[in-house]
């Protein structure tokens, strides 16, 4: 990424990176990162996921994830449709008869499917109507027969569309309603990655800001922020998240970003405060003071670039943590609302599907998340090694 921007910059070595304040560090770090093969592969995987997220967010792919394109619990294509033989879903003609009574979702798409099937004699209605005469005889005593004729005419197009669209298999299988698991996984990555990145940005921003102010000003300001920190720190993180989730009644992507961001800043605060304490008495800050730089300028223009690598690594660590946290929160039902698909809500559905032997949604969501999180953690390690080579010696690898 940095490479593309560097192309436009003047060719002198020190100017090759888009950072004007401390170019040496970033150029060196990028060089070190490039020589780290594991790091580069991880970066590539992360970039692929992020591109997928952007493509999905702009509607280029997986925009129609909610459409029921396959039969219920359609198996993955590589297994073939025949593993389903004998179960009601596969032996069925599409649409109406494949729809067990509990599945309200299908009824929404095909509101009169059951009635039509009944009228045609395809399906005997359950319950009171079981003994009713089928076919034409039934129609003649039906007081709504005239209306039904109109409704049937209207519904004909819709029903055909639904029927045609239902495939026996899907690339990674289908869920309970026949939605494509592959598309759900892509759409879910959008939620999970976006929440992870945005919450990490909020938490890192707050932590860095508080840490900078506390470390730079010291004295009572530092005491005040330290008090604030110890208050937040004495409540376990997960309990704090759940408490905030209990209090904020409305669910939404923004809510969960705020929950994770507002509760997660403490780690960064501690680190950045330490860095500012270390840096504020250094010569270059004294020099900035001598030329009349204001406090804010010294804090953010002079000191901040020197510690920005710490912030970047924190951002990366947080993103991994928050992606995992979002999945758990959404699983518990405290995360994103039900109409938004996330890996957590997919795992929630998959929990019940597994008992029925439908394992593909669990594997799809679990694997997608594991690949992303592995790549992101390895990239974080590579990033830290590249930005702070001293640490690599300590880790002893």
């Amino acid at each position, binding site marked *: 990424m940095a490479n593309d921007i560097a192309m436009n910059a003047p060719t002198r070595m020190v100017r090759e990176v888009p950072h004007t304040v401390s170019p040496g560090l970033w150029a060196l770090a990028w060089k070190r990162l490039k020589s780290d093969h594991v790091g580069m592969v991880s970066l590539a995987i992360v970039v692929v996921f992020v591109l997928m997220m952007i493509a999905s967010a702009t509607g280029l792919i997986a925009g129609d994830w909610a459409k029921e394109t396959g039969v219920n619990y359609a198996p993955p294509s590589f297994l073939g449709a025949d593993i389903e033989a004998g179960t009601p879903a596969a032996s069925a003609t599409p649409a109406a008869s494949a729809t067990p009574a509990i599945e309200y979702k299908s009824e929404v798409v095909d509101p009169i499917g059951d009635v039509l099937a009944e009228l045609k004699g395809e399906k005997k209605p359950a319950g009171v109507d079981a003994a009713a005469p089928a076919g034409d005889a039934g129609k003649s005593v039906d007081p709504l027969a005239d209306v039904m004729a109109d409704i049937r005419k209207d519904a004909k197009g819709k029903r055909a569309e639904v029927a045609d669209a239902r495939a026996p298999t899907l690339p990674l299988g289908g869920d309970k309603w026949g939605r494509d698991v592959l598309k759900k996984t892509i759409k879910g990555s959008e939620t999970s990655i976006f929440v992870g990145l945005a919450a990490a940005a909020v938490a890192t921003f707050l932590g860095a800001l508080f840490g900078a102010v506390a470390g730079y000003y010291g004295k009572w300001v530092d005491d005040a922020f330290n*008090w604030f920190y110890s208050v937040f720190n004495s*409540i376990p993180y997960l309990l704090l998240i759940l408490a905030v989730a209990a*209090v904020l009644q409305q669910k939404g992507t923004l809510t969960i970003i705020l929950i994770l961001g507002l509760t997660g800043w403490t780690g960064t605060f501690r680190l950045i405060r330490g860095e500012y304490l270390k840096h504020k008495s250094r010569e270059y800050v004294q020099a900035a003071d001598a030329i009349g730089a204001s406090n804010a300028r010294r804090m953010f223009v002079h000191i901040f670039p020197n510690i920005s690598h710490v912030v970047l690594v924190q951002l990366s660590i947080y993103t991994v943590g928050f992606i995992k946290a979002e999945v758990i929160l959404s699983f*518990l039902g*405290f995360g994103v609302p039900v109409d938004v698909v996330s890996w957590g809500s997919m795992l929630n559905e998959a929990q019940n599907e597994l*008992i029925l032997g439908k394992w593909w949604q*669990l594997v799809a969501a679990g694997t997608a998340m*594991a690949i992303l999180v592995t790549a992101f953690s390895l990239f974080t390690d590579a990033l830290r090694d590249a930005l702070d080579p001293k640490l690599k010696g300590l*880790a*002893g690898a």
Partner: protein
Amino acid sequence: MTAYIIRRLWQMIPTMLGVILLVFILFNWIGGDPAYVLAGKISNQEQIDNIRRQLGVDQPFYVQLWIFIKQVLTGDFGASWSTNEKVSNILATRLGPSLTVLVPLLILDTLCSLGLALAVAYVRGSLTDRLVMIVCTVGLSISILVYIIVFQYFFAYKLGWFPVQGWGNSFRENLLVFSALPILIGLTVSIAPNLRLYRTFFLDEINQDYVRTGRAKGLSENRIMWIHVLRNASIPIITHLMAGLPGLLLGSFLIERFFSIPGIGREVILAVERSDFPVIKALTVYVAVATMVSNLLADLMYKAADPRVQLK
């Protein structure tokens, strides 16, 4: 020493006030009017007013804050909003099951991760070390949810080695039958990060001069690793362990939920689902106190682990 402890306890007061204030702001101010939550959909104004009076939320904020401070001081947080059970009673009865799972888990996890970490730190850089690190990194990336779902399905449902879920009446049965699979899952999830962490602690020590001195004077490798390196790495290990200790009070949210273990973690989830604020408030305050006390204990243990540490 006594002076130090008294000073530390004294310093807890402002933090405690902060926790009280934070919890109060969260639940009494941002949390909105609980009467509407409790009364449900078919409430009339009279009903809501009644509930408000019962809960004391019709009082001005400073009165409510004073009520809350009194609750914290007396340890009496009233009754649950949804079941009307005493909060202290809820927490007392749910603590046992949580500890039945978590205490053996903590002990086994610490022993396994410390031993394995010492072993891989000893052969650092070797193929074994790298393989273990790769397995840990990948293992860490799989969501705990996947572990629970798959283990529960496979070991309990398919193979029938463990009960799928449930909880019995005798401690022995709970520990040996019902806690076995939860503990196994807990170990799978927690060994990977702890092993990685402890390994870095040991690596920091293993390159120190005293290790070379120990070898030079002919100490056995076992003695160097288990006595010298372990003891010198004990401060960060104590920090890490003590930081996790208050979590015992909280139980394990996911495991207790999946295995229907009537512990505190499940109670918290239920309380959040039902907007049962007193339970969450009480637990937050208790755990905050426990966290502060365990921080103090950790600092005291530093002194025991390393006599050079100055308590100030």
